[in-house]
């Protein structure tokens, strides 16, 4: 299985790649929403996207709007990552097509449980 981690913080990307690796995912990384959009059409495919919310260039909301408008990738599930733990952000992300949320700090357990909710048991 392949995951795409979109986050402007390198440490977070690396940590998530490590955690996802332990759960059997091969992970690629993107530094912002635009970079993520460019990688979504990777010929190897993406099974799940972990998406930061506040990012430069193109933020999480902008990424979701453009992704959902592209029928070729619209069905790829997105888990929103937020450190701000604001309910409004979660609501907005769900309205824009995100399937789940994960609040920082992220642990191996919370990541595993949220992925299970998306059907990655």
């Amino acid at each position: 299985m392949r995951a795409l981690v979109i986050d402007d913080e390198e440490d977070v990307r690396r940590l998530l790649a490590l955690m996802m690796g332990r759960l059997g995912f091969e992970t690629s990384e993107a530094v912002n929403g635009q970079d993520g959009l460019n990688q979504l059409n990777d010929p190897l495919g993406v099974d799940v996207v972990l998406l930061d919310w506040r990012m430069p260039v193109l933020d999480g909301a902008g990424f979701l709007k453009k992704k959902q408008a592209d029928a070729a990738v619209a069905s790829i599930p997105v888990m929103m990552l937020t450190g701000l733990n604001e309910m409004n952000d979660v609501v907005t992300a769900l309205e824009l097509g995100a399937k789940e949320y994960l609040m920082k700090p992220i642990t191996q357990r919370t990541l595993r449980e949220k992925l299970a909710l998306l059907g990655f048991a």
Partner: protein
Amino acid sequence: MTPPVWETGTGQIDYLGDLTRRIGGFVLEKERSLVSDPRVMDLLFREKVGTIEELVARLRKLPEGALHLSVVESLAVSDTSFFGGCRIFDQLEKTIIPWLADQPSRTHRLTLWSAGCSTGQEAYSLAISADRALANCFGWAYQVIGSDLSSRSLRTAESGVYSQFDINCGLPASRLVDYFEKRDNNWHVIKTLKKNVSFQKLNLADPGAPYPEADVVMVRNVLSYFEPNRRADVLGKIKRAMRPDGYLILGENETVDPSHGFRADSNGPCRLYRPAP
């Protein structure tokens, strides 16, 4: 790897094991790490003792009372999260509760009991499942009863206030949005859900403890810590407290045999049983 608490002498361990067996009815697992358990560490801090050996020495000197009960409460296993084993909650919402609500014998009211509810996540998960399942059943009401041995856990449960970490564990996004509100950096169960959930202190192993009457009893990862005779007694009492067409839900690795008065209804990840006639 260094063995965790069992650096403590076997005398102390045997003493604690005897305490949990007699007062709480459960077996203290030898493999369990007590020194890394925050509830045990919290207990040592509260009692102003540095080690488990010191705590046991104090317990031995005192007549059996509040401190002994407090230690048993702290040693009771507590690993809980919202919608833990989420498939059973899906089944409850989509199949079990609608079926129960469709039975003509019922009087527009369902009672669900989370036995060994710890800090309440399972009880609120039951309430959310019932709330969603009965949303289109006009005139139906439900109540959820959460019970636990630990007063400290019950205080958290009654508050209905959870940390970001708690919320991160297992709670699906749509349920967070619909049933929680964020205040003061914590997540609060909304009042309309909370009013249907009550909590009570109950020691399942106490022969005199009154069990609540319920349509659905969820007692997961509790009975496996009881000795066989105690487990049989508890299951017998649960059966007498249950509605005859109700459901008993056990944990993933727990089973009951026909001699306990239940028949298996499903062998999914969570074990589902019905009272045998």
